[in-house]
């Protein structure tokens, strides 16, 4: 399996966030329509729905592209994605002035996402890369 490595890398990258989208949708749907949380979450859902999976795919292409001898471990590479995604997500929320997040909470969110990204990339994305013939 040697053809279209970047396409395979993209596909391996988008699997996890795309599958997890159902959980996120269910969570936000319950918050909005069952518990009547007064935040129009649907206005910012474009971020987890479109941006996150696509950037995961592109980030995995980037991982494959950096095919040098001293490549960053895939877990750390995945954790670095937080530095790209988080500012975009935060700006999107702030631009619409729906949510003001207190500072300690921002740190907790940032740290939590980094840990999750590290573990998911290290185990799930690496497994998918291996499955699709992309060396991890």
């Amino acid at each position, binding site marked *: 399996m040697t053809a279209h490595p970047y396409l395979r890398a993209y596909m391996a990258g988008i699997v996890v966030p795309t599958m997890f989208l159902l959980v996120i949708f269910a969570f936000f749907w319950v918050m909005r329509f069952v518990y009547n949380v007064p935040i129009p979450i649907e206005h910012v859902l474009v971020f987890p729905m479109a941006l996150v999976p696509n950037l995961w795919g592109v980030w995995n292409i980037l991982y494959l592209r950096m095919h040098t001898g001293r490549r960053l471990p895939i877990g750390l590479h995945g954790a670095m994605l937080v530095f790209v995604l988080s500012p975009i997500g935060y700006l999107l929320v702030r631009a619409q002035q729906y949510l003001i997040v207190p500072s*300690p909470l*921002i740190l907790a969110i940032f740290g939590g996402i980094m840990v999750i990204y590290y573990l998911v990339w290290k185990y799930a994305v690496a497994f998918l890369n291996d499955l699709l013939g992309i060396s991890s």
Partner: protein
Amino acid sequence: MNERDEQIVRLLRNVIRPMEDAELARDLWPRMLDKMKGTAIRVPWFDWALAGLLVLLLCLFPAAIPGILYHL
């Protein structure tokens, strides 16, 4: 079966050789078990610690859960 069907059957028999010695030369199951053992995921203590830290973080700051889900 008409003449055409019989012709197809005859052609297929000519093309596909009958199976000879269908038994496996060796038992493949031990090799499969070896492969499964070789590919078992080993989670280092550091990753367990990180997972524990994440659980602790979510318990201390439950309000962060929507923000974390938003990024997944």
